[in-house]
């Protein structure tokens, strides 16, 4: 019930977003939705089937290129296709590409699988610049969305609603997939591939299909990006794109159905907001990921579920502890960010070094609207003390927790390689 209410609320907010957001924020939200669908598609393979792919950008980009070629064909009148259905072609291309690549990659499991996917994507990435005809060379390919019925597809909102509809549709299909018999079998693959084949299933074929379906939805996501930006570029094939979907998925949590989408939304918005504030945003994103991997391995969605469960079972102790932990958490965060920002501003060779040379002094730098004098010990001590005090607090709080319980297993150990 609570879940339905939450979903309805999120849905309502997403539908009403254009009423209270400016057009460019809608653009940000559009890319966030695309990232969410991509992460959900990725998680079908990595989270549910247990096959961690490090080259999923390939299928995302293949979908994107298929769509941009389709859009060009529609634009030139060579084929007829209603504009909102164009992203479908991304799914078709992703499926074909995924079945092909999947045939090779799924012959191996575990770490080997990860490496093959990485190598396949790297090869495509290295080849793409040479295949200008399909990938459009450095400047990429562009097209224009054609009007359809009463829609001209020129405004942010029309694009947003099309993307929203496809994302919701895609996620709903993925949900339905999980409810099918084959969807249940998919999870068995993650748990024990050997058992699957001794139960009479062809594990290789099953894995190819899962790979194909995951690539198909990734292709739709890539197609949506091509649809929204009206362009495509081979840089989409790069390692960065493959890395970000991994980050999104596991920050959100691969064990909860909507976890990856949550992670993608959070990181896409984080990237868009924080990149305007500091050039170190990638560093913060990385640190956040490492911390989550270390301290809550099953992601933010699972954290949310735990909090909800604690509220339900009126487990006030646990909740109080979480709130208590917020205070040292904030202290550590502020301290660490201050040190990092001051350091990075001083080490910024283009800007700061030149002014040092010019003024022959170390001028203060501004972080959090406060100016920090790099030559003063206080600048470094204050945040350091904040961090140490924070860590001390965490230990105090957790020491009490350790006494209370002897530790529970959060996630059962994976079966051996």
């Amino acid at each position, binding site marked *: 019930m609570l879940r339905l209410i939450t979903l309805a609320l999120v849905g309502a907010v997403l539908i009403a977003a254009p009423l209270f957001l400016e057009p460019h924020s809608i653009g940000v939200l559009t890319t966030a939705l695309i990232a969410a669908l991509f992460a959900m598609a990725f998680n079908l393979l990595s989270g549910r089937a247990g096959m961690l792919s490090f080259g999923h950008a390939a299928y995302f980009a293949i979908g994107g290129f298929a769509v941009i070629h389709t859009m060009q064909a529609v634009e030139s009148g060579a084929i007829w296709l209603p504009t909102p259905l164009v992203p479908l072609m991304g799914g078709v291309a992703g499926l074909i590409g995924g079945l092909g690549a999947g045939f090779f990659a799924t012959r191996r499991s575990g770490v080997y699988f990860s490496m093959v996917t990485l190598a396949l994507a790297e090869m495509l990435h290295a080849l793409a610049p040479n295949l200008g005809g399909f990938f459009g060379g450095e400047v990429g390919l562009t097209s224009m969305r054609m009007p359809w019925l009463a829609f001209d597809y020129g405004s942010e909102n029309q694009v947003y609603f099309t993307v929203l509809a496809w994302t919701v549709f895609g996620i709903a299909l993925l949900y339905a997939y999980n409810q*099918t018999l084959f969807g249940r079998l998919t*999870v068995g693959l993650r*748990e024990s591939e050997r058992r699957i*084949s*001794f139960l*009479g299933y*062809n594990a290789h*074929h099953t894995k190819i299909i899962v790979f194909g379906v995951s690539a198909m939805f990734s292709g739709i996501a890539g197609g949506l990006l091509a649809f929204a930006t009206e362009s495509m570029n081979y840089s989409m094939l790069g390692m960065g794109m493959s890395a970000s979907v991994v980050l999104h998925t596991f920050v959100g949590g691969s064990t909860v159905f909507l976890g990856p989408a949550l992670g993608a939304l959070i990181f896409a918005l984080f990237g868009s907001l924080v990149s305007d504030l500091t050039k170190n945003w990638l560093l913060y994103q990385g640190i956040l990921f490492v911390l989550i991997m270390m301290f809550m391995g099953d992601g933010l969605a699972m954290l949310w579920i735990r909090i909800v469960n604690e509220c339900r079972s009126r487990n006030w102790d646990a909740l109080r502890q979480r709130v208590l932990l917020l205070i040292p958490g904030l202290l550590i965060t502020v301290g660490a960010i201050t040190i990092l920002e001051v350091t990075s501003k001083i080490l910024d060779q283009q800007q700061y070094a030149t002014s040092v040379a010019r003024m022959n002094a170390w001028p203060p730098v501004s972080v959090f609207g406060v100016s920090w004098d790099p030559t003063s010990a206080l600048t470094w001590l204050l945040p350091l003390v904040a961090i140490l005090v924070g860590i001390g607090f965490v230990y105090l709080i957790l020491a009490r927790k350790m006494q209370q319980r002897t530790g529970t297993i959060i996630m*059962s150990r994976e079966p051996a390689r």
Partner: protein
Amino acid sequence: MTQAAIELAGLKKRFGDNEIIRGVDLAVREHERHALIGPNGAGKSTLFHLISGLYTPSAGDILLNGRSIGGLPPHLITRRGLSRSFQITTIFPRLSVQENLRIAAMSKHGRRYALFSLARNAKEVNRDTDQLMELVRLSHVRDKFAGDLTYSEQRALEIGMAMGPGADVILLDEPMAGMSREETHYMIDLIRNVTVGKTLLVVEHDMEVVFSLCDRISVLVYGELIATGRPDDIRSNARVQEAYLGEVVA
């Protein structure tokens, strides 16, 4: 004489220069409960892996109900009607008992690529799942994660999953390993129940289990069968005595 369910003919398996199975001939009759015993390192597990398709034979053949299955991959052997359990529990730990058994039962109905049918609407599959659950007496933990079950419950689930594909020939690899006396009695009873009307080939160390459960026994020593026969004959067989010198003979 009834037809042999499993027939091994001159079966050999080499790993490099090391011959583990050195020409085994064996016929397991239809509907019998047949035990495979032997000292450690005799090649019992290797023989199981050969029959179930994990390894391919170096020489010789394996017949299932008169048809050759030597060298077939495991999933095809299962589809031909032979299914097995593992010595090391191989269940789906992060899935519920019901999901575990449902995946096993789906196979019986050939729902291997059922991309478009919802699990909860698959009536036959769900009916079979429930039956399996009853059979291995796990209905009371149907929604528990398999990984959270007690050890003996996990072993019961292991057997339940081997029964899932509906095969007529069942291979059980040390079903009693690591169990207490009490649990062993419970498990003997359970195995007897679930294998009614099926052919059973079981590897087991516990002689009490072997003698109380099985109709016939084969003894494997250093990759060769030294005896096959009814429990009483085996008990009194000189070569078996010799092979087991220093080991437990009940």
